[in-house]
């Protein structure tokens, strides 16, 4: 049976792993290659690098981080942030990424999903979605790091990206993100029930039981967390042991 995946996410700026603390300052938490190696040892099923660098020079440094990691860590790497064109996708895959994650850019230019899937295969196109609840069982899609509501219905967008050839969805709940009150079960359930590609749950993980809960209550095949693992509140191994104790299949 296919195991549910636990995925740590690393935000990288100018070649260093950083993490926002309480939405204010940005705190540096270490060397990305070392962090990735540590997560690999803990049993991470994939590792996500997210580039939050704004500058062109920073982009080169970031891809170098991907390149170095790919020489040392032999689990799948997903890379997101700053991917705007097919050439960006090619460059990122050549640096050693297995998948790219596109978010705002996919909303602005949905053709990027189709072109990427046609050229490199659906399996390497993950579409990241930031969404927020507007009313009972209704959510809309936001772009630019969850700052701009573009008024597209979440489920409509999910249908559209699946048709365009997305191979996976990483669904982040703006409402749950940073709360540590657990994943957004209702939203994840709605999306999983409306598509037939893998869905990664993102946003809201705070307790060890949150992971088991999202797997028990939704069709999400993977769960992602960042600060929880960065600040060593939990290890990937702890999370997996807990899932296993509740009968969930993990590696």
């Amino acid at each position, binding site marked *: *049976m*296919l*195991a549910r*995946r636990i995925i740590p996410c690393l935000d990288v700026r100018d070649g260093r792993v950083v993490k926002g603390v309480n939405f204010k300052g940005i705190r540096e938490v270490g060397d990305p290659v070392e962090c990735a190696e540590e997560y690999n040892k803990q049993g991470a099923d994939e590792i996500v690098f997210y580039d939050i660098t704004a500058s062109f020079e920073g982009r080169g440094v970031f891809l170098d981080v991907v390149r170095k990691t*790919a*020489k040392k860590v032999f689990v*799948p790497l997903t890379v997101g942030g700053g991917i705007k064109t097919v050439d960006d996708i090619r460059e990122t895959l050549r640096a050693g990424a297995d998948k790219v994650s596109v978010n705002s850019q996919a909303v602005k230019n949905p053709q990027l999903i189709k072109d990427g899937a046609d050229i490199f295969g659906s*399996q390497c196109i993950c579409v990241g979605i930031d969404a927020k609840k507007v009313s009972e069982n209704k959510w809309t899609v936001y772009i630019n790091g969850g700052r701009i509501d573009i008024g597209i219905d979440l489920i409509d967008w999910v249908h559209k990206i699946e048709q365009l050839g997305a*191979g996976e969805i990483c669904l982040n709940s703006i409402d749950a993100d940073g709360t540590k009150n657990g994943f957004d079960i209702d939203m994840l359930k709605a999306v999983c029930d409306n598509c*037939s590609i893998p869905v990664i749950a993102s946003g809201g993980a705070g307790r060890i039981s949150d992971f088991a809960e999202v797997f028990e209550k939704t069709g999400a095949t993977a769960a992602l967390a960042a600060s929880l693992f960065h600040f060593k509140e939990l290890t990937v191994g702890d999370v997996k042991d807990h899932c296993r104790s509740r009968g969930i299949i993990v590696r």
Partner: protein
Amino acid sequence: MIAIVDYNAGNIFSVRNALEFLGIDCLITDSRQKLEDADGIILPGVGAFGFAMESLRERSLVDTLRAEAVKKPFLGICLGMQLLFEESFELGRFEGLGLLRGKVDIIRQPEGEKPLILPQMGWNRLDIRFDCPLLKGVTNDDYVYFVHSYRAYCDEESIAASAYYGGDVPALVTDGKTVFGAQFHPERSGAVGLGMLTSFAELCGVSHGEAY
């Protein structure tokens, strides 16, 4: 030296990274001479079957691969594994290398059950059917990483290990001699996958560093 076939496949560099990490001498090449001189050949691959066969044909590699695969250890990975079979029905109908009997088609939806999510993306457990050199040290508790929507439909005798996804999916196939195919990605399957690549190097008589 192990030759990694260069034909524009996406995961060539991941395979090379893994071999280099293991201290295994390797080379990415589309030269027929170098493929003939190599001690073993790895055929990687992600993407569509027809497109991949066309890329091999453009480089005039089809006959070379067919000939070399029966002379020395030959490992196809993911799409490279699917190319070993006679034909594929991915987005049309395409002839494969025909090194193993069988065909490639989409993973069938199980009847009367919840539809399968495609691609199968993630870690799945191996069910070992029979011993094979690449499975040295591998047990039924080991997981490997899969990403695919198509699979082989082939003779039971060629399936050294399978993984359950709505049915038994061929995971590691072989002709029992020189030809091997992994539907999963050993280069992305952590220590278990690196162990298999080490076993492959041993089979080729190529030295490697300390066991991972």
